[in-house]
């Protein structure tokens, strides 16, 4: 395997830092999780700022607290959770290109709003690819695909190029502290839940709890009273909402198991799920049942925006072509 081009030397990986692309497709029947970037909105922007392929691997940094030194002159981009970004102690910013000189120290403070940050390098990050993906699923313990450690290197997939300065206008940057309504697509055991429980689920706030990780976010709110039982384990769709016996829902995320037998009143629509992944413990969300065709359209528009929008010129912000 080639080691790619010089990049960053990690001195503080933070709570957890893993290489993620858009996930592993085609191997879930072996029991392999999809993995991949949890918030594709911030992930795609990180790649777009550098002119990378949209699915190029980035570093997913949980909660910030990250420090690294540039081994060469390199342009990077950091997107996602609101955190102080500094180069050699000088304030810089998220959602823009950052030009580092060899020896510069990049510092990302602790997330103040939002949970996940993406760090993009030119051409993407060069790391071991395994079954068509570089995504790291820590619980699968695949050799060579582990979370980043102190002293680890992040190599760029292509050498530094002068791409000019790019940034995302303030109005386009997400505010992760805003109220969040999630569309729940009815499916699976929806018809087996009582009307009262479905009403309960969609008329109260549910809070994200501390028991939240890349496998799933445990929520807490009014417990569902009459949870169906005796479900035969079935394949889990991305974003399925499962309700175990205690009546508190769990939003299943990218590293969840491939099959499961807890009842599911529906599946969280993808674009909302990306936003949910940025919720910190204590933040709340509200569910509403929505139409599958609408959700599918919203996802297609989201994907189309990233695929088709282009930078107007090297020194300006993006435009919708």
């Amino acid at each position: 395997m080639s080691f790619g081009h010089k990049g960053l030397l990690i001195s503080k990986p933070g709570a957890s830092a893993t290489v993620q692309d858009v996930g592993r497709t085609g191997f879930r029947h072996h029991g392999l999780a999809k993995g991949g970037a949890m918030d594709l909105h911030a992930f795609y922007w990180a790649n777009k700022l550098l002119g990378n392929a949209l699915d190029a691997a980035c570093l997913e940094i949980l909660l910030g607290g990250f420090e690294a030194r540039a081994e060469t002159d390199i342009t990077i981009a950091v997107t996602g959770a609101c955190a102080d970004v500094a180069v050699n102690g000088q304030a810089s910013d998220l959602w823009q290109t950052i030009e580092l000189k060899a020896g510069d120290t990049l510092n990302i403070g602790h997330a103040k709003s939002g949970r996940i940050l993406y760090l993009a390098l030119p051409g993407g990050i060069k790391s071991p690819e395994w079954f068509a993906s570089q995504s790291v699923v820590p619980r699968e313990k695949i050799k060579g695909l582990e979370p980043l450690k102190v002293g680890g290197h992040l190599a760029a997939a292509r050498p530094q190029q002068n791409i000019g300065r790019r940034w995302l206008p303030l109005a386009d940057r997400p505010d992760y502290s805003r109220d969040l309504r999630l569309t729940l697509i009815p499916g699976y055991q929806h018809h087996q839940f009582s009307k009262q429980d479905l009403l309960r689920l969609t008329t109260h706030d549910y809070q994200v709890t501390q028991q939240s990780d890349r496998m799933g976010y445990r929520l807490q709110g009014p417990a569902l009273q009459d949870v169906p039982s005796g479900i035969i384990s079935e394949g889990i769709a991305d974003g399925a909402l499962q309700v175990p016996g205690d009546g508190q829902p769990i939003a299943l995320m990218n590293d969840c198991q491939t099959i499961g037998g807890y009842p599911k009143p529906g599946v969280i629509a993808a674009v909302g799920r990306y936003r949910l992944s940025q919720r910190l413990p204590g933040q709340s969300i509200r569910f509403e049942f929505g139409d599958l065709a609408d959700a599918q359209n919203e996802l297609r528009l989201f994907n189309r925006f990233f695929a088709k929008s282009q930078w107007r010129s090297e020194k300006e912000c993006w435009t919708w072509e």
Partner: protein
Amino acid sequence: MIRPVSENALLVTLADEIRQELPAQLRSLCEQLEAQKWPWLEDLIPSYTTLLIIYDPDQLDFRQAIAAIRPILAAEGSGSANKPESRTIELPVYYSPESGPDLEALAAACSLSVPDVIEMHTAQTYQVFAMGFAPGFGFLAEVDPAIAHPRKTTPRKSVPAGSVGIANRQTAVYPVSSPGGWQLIGRCPTRLFDRDSLSLLATGDQVRFRSISREDYLAQGGEL
């Protein structure tokens, strides 16, 4: 029955209850779907009575995906499709209190001797009803009712790789060390998950267990 469950997933339900013939049907259905080589088909997850089909919604919408899949389902249902041969895989197991910490307690709870439990576990031919929980983990059934035993009330924090467990009428081998609550009766030296070839087992496979000695277990690469 085929129903959409999300923007990129359709759930095919073959039956309301677990039946012996379903794993072979699911496997056949997966092979038929794969043979279409549709560029929008991303993942197939068979499990007991259902098949979850993951597709790329940028290439077609749920109505188009259902319309494409329905004729394949109909052909399967009418039995006109070729049924694939099922494979039988033999897995050696070193059954002992040393390799299976719950073996003696399970035998006592079932009012059987340890050799009886081993005999009953190796007498059955099992089917893989689903893959999941962890990479390479196959849910095998059905265990003889005389040795069926519920999961432990408190799961172990770490079950060693290769451990063979029983949970009610299912049995399985843990491919990698992981937390787990199944009753452990022995250990298998065969690798069930490999970095290069992935899972040894697939839904629809037949599995038999064979009792081996401590020496054979170690000679075949087993660890204690």
